């Protein structure tokens, strides 16, 4: 036990000074003393944010340069928006797809939406031949459907976390078939494939997980 004659307190430590007044302590620590609290070991957690900051800085600067060049030589065409949009998508892809700790099914659904949106924009901005609706939207929705079903099969124990996302994407896979009837989609087979897959998955959920889906909805929507 050590002693501080200023504060008149006792303390058992290997440190040489009083934590209250910083005066030197008298006496010796107990022979079998183990410090109450461990020493601080720096976790070096600063490195990651700095790398992130540098990359962020470089991308923002290049986006601004692109926009300035475009505006300086403006001829009625805002071409810089395409690379800027792509960089932007790439950023979201990296941060949501890889670094986010969000639920993996959520990430799939989110990125699928984003990609479909981006592709439709590019399609509309360029030749407007409708490849994004006709092929890519139904195919991407089916891929996402299969991917989430696959995850549920592999990680069976957590299936309740994913089932609501599966339901969402399965319901949204019915959109292409609606677009067929409104005449926006002209190539029918990808839309039909996506529709068939979605119906199959929906029926599967309804037959085999009726309680889970009810519980999940109750949880998510309680007010």
């Amino acid at each position, binding site marked *: 036990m050590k002693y501080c004659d200023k504060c008149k307190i006792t303390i058992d430590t290997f440190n040489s000074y009083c934590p209250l007044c910083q005066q030197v302590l008298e006496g010796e620590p107990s022979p079998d003393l183990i410090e*109450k609290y461990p020493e601080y070991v720096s976790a070096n957690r600063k490195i990651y944010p700095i790398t992130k900051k540098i990359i962020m800085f470089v991308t923002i600067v290049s986006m601004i340069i692109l926009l300035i060049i475009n505006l300086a030589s403006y001829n009625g065409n805002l071409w810089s928006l395409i690379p800027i949009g792509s960089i932007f998508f790439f950023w979201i892809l990296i941060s949501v797809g890889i670094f986010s700790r969000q639920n993996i099914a959520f990430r799939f659904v989110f990125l699928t939406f984003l990609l479909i949106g981006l592709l439709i924009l590019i399609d509309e901005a360029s030749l407007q031949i409708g490849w994004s609706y006709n092929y890519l939207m139904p195919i991407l929705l089916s891929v996402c459907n299969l991917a989430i079903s696959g995850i549920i099969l592999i990680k069976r124990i957590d299936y309740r976390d994913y089932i609501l996302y599966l339901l969402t994407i399965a319901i949204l896979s019915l959109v292409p078939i609606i677009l067929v009837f409104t005449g926006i989609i002209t190539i029918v087979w990808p839309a039909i494939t996506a529709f068939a897959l979605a119906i199959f998955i929906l029926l599967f959920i309804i037959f085999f997980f009726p309680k889970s889906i009810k519980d999940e909805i109750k949880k998510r929507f309680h007010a």
Partner: protein
Amino acid sequence: MNKQSRHETWFRMDNSGKIFPEVSSHRETNVFRVAISLTEKIDNVLLQQTVDTILARYPMFKVKLKKGLFWSYFDYNSKPFHVEELKHYVCGEISPKKNNGYLFRVMYRNTDIIIEMFHSLADGAGVIKFLKALTYEYLVLVGKDIKPDNLVPTKNQRPSMEEYEDANTKFYDKKNKKHVPEKRAYRIKGSPLSEDLTGIISGTMSTSRMIRLARENKMTITEYFAALMMYTIYITQIQYRGQIKSNQAPVKIFVPVNLRKHFPSNTLRNFSNFVKVGMVMTEDDISFEDLKIFVKEQFEKGMTKSELIRKMSENVKFEKNIFLRFTPYFLKKYALKIGYNMLGMKLNTMSLTNIGKVDFPESMQPFVFDVTAAVYAGKFNTVNCSIMSYQDRLKISFTRSIVETTIEREFFRHFTDLGIDVEIESNYVEEY
């Protein structure tokens, strides 16, 4: 809520728990700690086994935080929980995204078991029950011949619905929910510690001596400490400096009140409220004697049943608001955040939490040495204080986010000047 099989349990958040996920960060962690020192070195393998057993008995803690459309909630967590060796951090952030999604930690070091809990999940009294159950099962597993004597809940008891109830809404009175506006509180100044570290300094004194001291002053221990705390802040920070603008804000001590002592409930979740003592301290001649009288008065006023119900209902009314209830969560959380930043934290200079005394059955007592409680210290509440006692060891722990220790020094010197022995512990955070 627990009618389904164990694997499908989920829990609504209680009224006071709802705010914490939105206002917590690396700096404002809203984490508190209770620790127990046993008489023998902790076996981490057995401790891990114990926690696994306990989690099966207390499904309320085997959860992760999830977001719904209108509110976030606790959902069953299927991932394993891991006990860890104690690190230097005191009440560090519990991010729902790390730690396998668990909202508490169990750590060990030498003879100590340390539990850190995110405030959303439970309050001090709830964690004490968890700690007692954990200690009991651990000692049984180590091979000690002990009996629960109905003082600790054991793994064989069935979980009861009452343990999970949100008692706040049970005692809600819509006729008594008036909001009383408050002024921003005085903030204890100091130089921030590097890397957001937290310092902890605890002083252990004799429980019986403290009770005698409080009685001599016709006060409870909590009242005595609250008065002394105000006096200490006054003499170290404000006295003779009343002309400075920032010193003219009232010094306000936030004292949590365990409502289970005032209203019948056995819940493990948040069921606490507070009493606040506040005073503008710009006069040059405030004495400790003045403050004792003042604090006693304020406690008497704040502890009346109707005042406690008013404070409870003031919070509950917020979640009963039909408009707010059906606002989607991603918008609602901003409302919660703004409300809390404007009102919550900045209305208190310091929190002083008296967890009270912990009892163990006689057969367990030879294996338990002492207990410690601590709450996080953040940017605005730079110094916080918690008290917990076991047998004749009463431990007062100061946590701080600043380098200076003048408040701790003057506080403990008050007792040594009275001739009372004080044994100090510190994590010597200023070394780093």
